[in-house]
């Protein structure tokens, strides 16, 4: 395979068969729920049935999934090399869950402590977690947090509500905090 072919046709990686099996199991679950989760009315045309497109898409997922597994099975001599390290790859996926948790805590914190404090806390704490712990790095992280708030909430007025904590600020400051920060 030459360079540009490789560019168009990426290599298989450890863990892909595991992923396809899990995804296929999900598709089979959806297929098993087709009868209860979609409606079929006796009077309407087939293409106008509410069940038609869910059926087409879920059946497609199942068919393509099985076809992929069949290809992997028939080429199993090459797939054994890629199945090495599948477990460590799956563990790598779990590492991302930590950052999902960080993100969800940030989401919960914004309506309580406000967008500006929550963002600055989030960027500084996450920077520290990632090993950026010098004063300069933490200040940069805080500045990035402030910058993001200034651009989006103060500048572009995106719809992010003020924090519950802002209610305890003096009247004039409270209005400014709710509108701009």
């Amino acid at each position, binding site marked *: 395979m030459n360079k540009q072919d490789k560019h168009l046709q990426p290599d298989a990686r450890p*863990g892909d068969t595991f992923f396809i099996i899990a995804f296929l199991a999900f598709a089979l679950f*959806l297929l098993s729920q087709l009868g209860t989760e979609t*409606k079929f*009315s006796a009077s309407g045309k087939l293409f106008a049935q509410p069940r038609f497109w869910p059926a087409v898409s879920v059946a497609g*997922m199942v068919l393509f999934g099985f076809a992929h597994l069949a290809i992997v099975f028939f080429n199993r001599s090459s797939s054994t090399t890629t199945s090495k390290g599948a477990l460590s790859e799956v563990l790598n996926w779990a590492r991302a869950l930590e950052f999902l948790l960080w993100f969800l805590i940030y989401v919960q914190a914004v309506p309580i402590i406000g967008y500006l404090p929550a*963002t600055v806390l989030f960027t500084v704490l996450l920077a520290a977690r*990632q090993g950026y712990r010098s004063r300069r790095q933490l200040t940069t992280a805080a500045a990035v947090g402030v910058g993001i708030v200034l651009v989006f909430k103060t500048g572009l007025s995106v719809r992010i509500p003020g924090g519950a904590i802002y209610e305890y600020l003096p009247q004039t400051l409270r209005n400014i905090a709710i509108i701009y920060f």
Partner: protein
Amino acid sequence: MELLSDSLAILARWDVVAALLVGSVGGVIIGAIPGVGAAVAIAILLPATFSLDPIVGLTALLGIYGSSMYGGAIPAILINTPGTAVNALTTYEGTPMTKRGEARRALSLAYSASFFGGVFSVICLILLSPVLAKIAPMFGSREIFLASLLGVILVVLAHRGQIMIAGMMACFGIWLNTIGLEPIQYSQRYTFGQSWLAGGVDLIVVVLGLFAISQAFVLLVEPDKRSKAESITGGLLSGFKELALYKRVATASSSFGVAMGMIPGVGEFTAQFMSYTYAQKSSKTPEQFGNGSPEGLIASEAANNAVPAAAMIPLLALGIPGEALTAMMLSVFYVHNVVPGPGLFQNQMDFVVALYIALLMLNVLVVIFLLFSTNILLKVIEIPTRFLGIVVLTLSFVGVYSLRNSPIDCAIAGAFGIFGFILKRLNLPIVPIILGMVLGGIMEAKLRTSMMRVKTPLDFIDRPIAFILFLIILAVVASHFYGMAQRRKNTRSNIK
């Protein structure tokens, strides 16, 4: 003339000019940062543009889309790391040139080829407009259904070596679009009794999860990378002169970019592959390819920069996005009740021409910016990747939360972030999911409408455009199976 003055009037506003500047300069900077890319930036900015006028929002997003590939060439040439995925082929020629001490020449050639590709495709778009204005109204429900179906088939077949997985992902996208209350009989589909699923899964939430949050996870989980590039000394205009020596390659590559950009589901990678292969086969020095060939560099950059303007053709003329970025832009149209499709060319041609002019201005602005700021942009490359991950994750919150202030949207986006992270780790395709979601909705609505007037299956293709599209679908599928059979035959003969 009146049309031109009306279009210029649309653009002659401070907010449009500001959007053009921010989009083009921002796009170059984002493109120059390896690991971010236009898709992440557009996904994050999308909800912020909903409060802006459509022309302002679209100009900013188009600016990012059109200019990111210019910026992406800088790290591709200087540090062997493509700024955006579509600059990957540029590394094959740009890095060897840098190693030979020709970094300035490589950058200059990349800028000039990108400019040529970008302007060439806008000119093609302008020339094609009268034809599109005539053809677009001939697209009724069944033609749009067939064109969408062709888009789904092409996006699946474009993923060579991963066709089954791409098909699976496209079907997953179509399924995602069916979740919630369906619009005809108002029955619930796959809501599992959950009220938060009744409204369906929002495209923007999925896009942000799959592109932005997943990329943040990739950057946060993988080891920190810090790159350093040497400063460039001297002017960067010489490439424009040198490009004239390779005008055949530049023109052919830009033409491939336009042709592939226009076809839904194909895009930059195929355009680059075809133009690079053409440039290599037609070159007097094919042995230089992969070792710093200026022709290879021009082929790669001209082709990928010709795609954005061309990709707007199916979106504007038919309302069918050809790839993920135009699918995101489609939502900007919908939010403002501007329905792209045949009616847009008939009723709002000044708006369409204004977008073309904005695209043209964008290319000029970007080149001027790059000629003076390349050395400053090298600082952006030095940002540690994990720090970028923090920034992308923080920005992703703005994108998702500002939609409806819904923590559930954030949780769904987070879940798609994990899903996208796994797909990226495994090198599996993401784009078919987005196109499946968008085109699945279009196909469902158009098939339902068109089948009302169809009595026999042959009635479905009894109009010229429908018949041509049907033949194209058959030809695409048949040529794919023929290609498969040929490859299998070659493999067997090689084994023997």
